[in-house]
C-alpha cells in the first residue's frame, strides 16, 4: 500500500513529465531538418561518455575534463565570493550605517549582467582564466551578501535583549545567536549563488576559451554539431541540479 502510494506520488508524475518532454522533442525533431531527435542524441551521448577522460592535448580533451575544469573555476570564484560576501553580509546586517552606505551601490551593481564584468576582468587581471573566475565571483557574491544581511536583520530583538541581560560577549553573541539564526538565510543565499555561478560559467567560457564545458559548447557550435550542443544543455542542467541538491542536503543538516 505504502509502496504503491510512494510510486503514485513520487515516481509516476516525473516519469510522465519526462516522457511527454521526449515526445514533444521527437515531434519537433521530425518537423525540423537541423534538430536531431532523442535517439540520435542518445547515441552520440553514449559515444561521448564512453571515453570521458581522454586527453589529446590542450585543444581536445574528454567531456569529463571539461566538466571538471568548469567546476574548478566555479569552485574558486564561488569560494572567494563566499569568503568576502558572507562576512560582508553580517556587517551590513548588523550595522545600520554601513547598510545605508552600501545599499545604493549594491542595488545598482546587482542587476548588471555578469558578462558585462568580463572585459573589466580582462583589463585588470590581464589573463583569461582569472577573468572568468572574476565573473563568477561578482555574479555570485550578491545573493550571499543580501541574504546573509537579511537573516541578520530578521533576528528577533528579544534574542539580543536576552544576550544583553546575560552580558554575553560579542563573540558569544555571534556564535550562539547570530550565526545559528542566520544560517538558513545564508544557505539560501549560497544556493542562489551557486545556481548563478554555474549558469554564468558556460557563458564566460564561451568568450574566454580554454578547457571547460562552455568553450566545448562553443567549439561544437563552430562545428555546427547540434547533438553535442543538446547533450551539453543536459550536462549543464544535470550538474546544476546536483549542485543544488547537495546544498539542500547540507541545509537540512544544519537547520536547527
Amino acid at each position, binding site marked *: 500500500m505504502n509502496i504503491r502510494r510512494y510510486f503514485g506520488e513520487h515516481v509516476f508524475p516525473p516519469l510522465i513529465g519526462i516522457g511527454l518532454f521526449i515526445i514533444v522533442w521527437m515531434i519537433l525533431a521530425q518537423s525540423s531538418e*537541423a534538430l536531431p531527435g532523442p535517439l540520435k542524441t542518445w547515441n552520440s551521448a553514449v559515444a561521448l561518455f564512453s571515453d570521458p577522460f581522454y586527453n*589529446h*592535448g*590542450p*585543444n*581536445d580533451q574528454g567531456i569529463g575534463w571539461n566538466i571538471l575544469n568548469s567546476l574548478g573555476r566555479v569552485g574558486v570564484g564561488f569560494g572567494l565570493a563566499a569568503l568576502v560576501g558572507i562576512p560582508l553580509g553580517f556587517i551590513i546586517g548588523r550595522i545600520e550605517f554601513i547598510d545605508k552606505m552600501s545599499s545604493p551601490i549594491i542595488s545598482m551593481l546587482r542587476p548588471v549582467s555578469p558578462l558585462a564584468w568580463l572585459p573589466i576582468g*580582462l583589463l585588470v587581471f*590581464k*589573463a*583569461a582564466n582569472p577573468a572568468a573566475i572574476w565573473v563568477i565571483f561578482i555574479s555570485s557574491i550578491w545573493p550571499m551578501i543580501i541574504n546573509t544581511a537579511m537573516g541578520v536583520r530578521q533576528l528577533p530583538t528579544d534574542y539580543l535583549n536576552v544576550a544583553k541581560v546575560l552580558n554575553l560577549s560579542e563573540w558569544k553573541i555571534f556564535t550562539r545567536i547570530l550565526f545559528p539564526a542566520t544560517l538558513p538565510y545564508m544557505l539560501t543565499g549560497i544556493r542562489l549563488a551557486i545556481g548563478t555561478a554555474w549558469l554564468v560559467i558556460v557563458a564566460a567560457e*564561451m*568568450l*574566454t*576559451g*580554454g578547457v571547460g564545458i562552455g*568553450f566545448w559548447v*562553443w*567549439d*561544437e*557550435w*563552430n*562545428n*555546427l554539431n547540434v547533438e553535442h550542443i543538446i547533450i551539453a544543455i543536459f550536462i549543464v542542467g544535470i550538474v546544476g541540479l546536483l549542485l543544488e541538491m547537495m546544498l539542500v542536503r547540507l541545509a537540512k543538516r544544519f537547520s536547527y
Partner: protein
Amino acid sequence: MEDSKNIAGEKLAPELNSRREFMKQTGAILGAAGIMSMVPMGTKAAAWAGGSDAPELKEVKVGFIPLTDCASLVIASVMKFDEKYGIKIMLSKEASWAGVRDKLTNGELHAAHVLYGLVYGVHLGIGGQKQDMSVLMTLNNNGQAITLSNQLKDKGVTNGAALKKLVDSEKRDYTFAQTFPTGTHAMWLYYWLASYGINPLADVKTITVPPPQMVANMRIGNMDGFCVGEPWNNRAIYDKIGFTATTTQDIWKDHPEKVLGCTGAFAHKYPNTARALIMAVLEASKYIDEMGNRRKVAEIIADKSYVNCPLEVIDQRLEGKYEDGLGRKWNDPNYMKFYNDGAVNFPYLSDGMWFLTQHKRWGLLKEDPDYLAVAKKINQIELYKQAASQVKVPVPREVMRSSKLMDGTVWDGRDPKKYAAGFKVRA
C-alpha cells in the same frame, strides 16, 4: 683558433647562410664539430652557433582560430618541424578574434594566427587598446570568399552588379557580416561592395559576428551575405543556405591574409625564438604547398583539436577544387597558398600599408598615419630575412610589390595618402 673565436663572437650576421656553409666546411677541423655530429640532425640546426642563437623560450604559446588557413601552424606542430629548430609550439584554440587580440596583448599568447588588419589596428589603437605589434611573416594568400544567401539567389542576385540593382530597387535593411572591424574580411567585403557602387557603411548594415552566427543567421533569413575564411563558405553551400558570390582571390589575386602576429615587445625580447618560429612555419608552409600533401594536411587539420569540421568541407577548396553553389565548378589556380616559393610569406611593407589605406578610407583612422613608418615598425623584415636564409627560402629583392585589384586600381605602396583618398565610394 682564430676561426672558432670568430664564430662565437659573431652574433647576428646578416648573411647567416654563408656562415652555416662555413661551419660545414671547417667543421672537420674544429673541436666543436665532434660534439655536433653526435647531436641528432634536428637540434643541430638550432644550436649551430654555439648557444648564442638558441631560442630563448623552449615552449611558444601560439593561438589560432579554427579556419583552414591555420594549417601551417598546425602542421609545424604536428609534423614536429618546431622541434627541429629547438622550440615546441603549444597551440591554443581561441574563441574569437577579439579573444586572440586580448591574449596577445596581455601576454597569454606569445604569437598567433591573426588577421593582417587586426595587428595594424591594435598598433594604432583602433579595434583594441593601443600596443606596439609585430608581423613576423605572412601565413597565407587567398582562400577567403564572400557568400550570399539563397534568398538573394531566388531574387536573381548571383553577382555584385545584380546585388547593387536589388539594393537600389528594393528598399529594406540588408545585413552583411565580417569577422573583425579592422580585419581582412571586413576590408574584402567593403572593397567588393564598394566596387559595385554599394557603400558598405551607408547603404547596407555591416556587423561583426563569429562565423557560426553568420551561418545560423543566414539559415533563418537574417543575413544577406558575409565574408569569412574557409571552410565557412564551402560550409554554406554544403548546408544549402548560400552560394559563393566571389572568392577573395578574384578581388585581389594573391592578397595577404593571415599573418603570424605577436607584440612588438615579444619580437624585441625573443628574437631567436621568433626566428625559430618563422623557420618552423616556413618549413610547414613548404610542405603544405606540395599538392600531393594537401589531402593529408586536410585530414590533419579537420581533427577535433584543430578546425573540428567534416573532412569533405575542407579538402575540396584546399586542393583548389571550387564549386560556387550555383552550378559552376572550376579548378582555381589562385587557391589558398601557404608558400609559393616564399612569395606568400615575405612580409611586404606594401601589404601592411594597404590595410592602413583601407582603414583610412572607411574612417577607422581619422588622419593619415605615416604609412611607411608604421609598416616598417610592424613588419619584421630583418628577422624574416635571417630566418628565411637559414632554411633556404628565397627572399624578394623589393620590400614593396605591385598588385592590381578587381576594379583595376594598382597598389604598389607608392603614395599611400593619394591612394587612400582616391576611392569614389568611401566613408
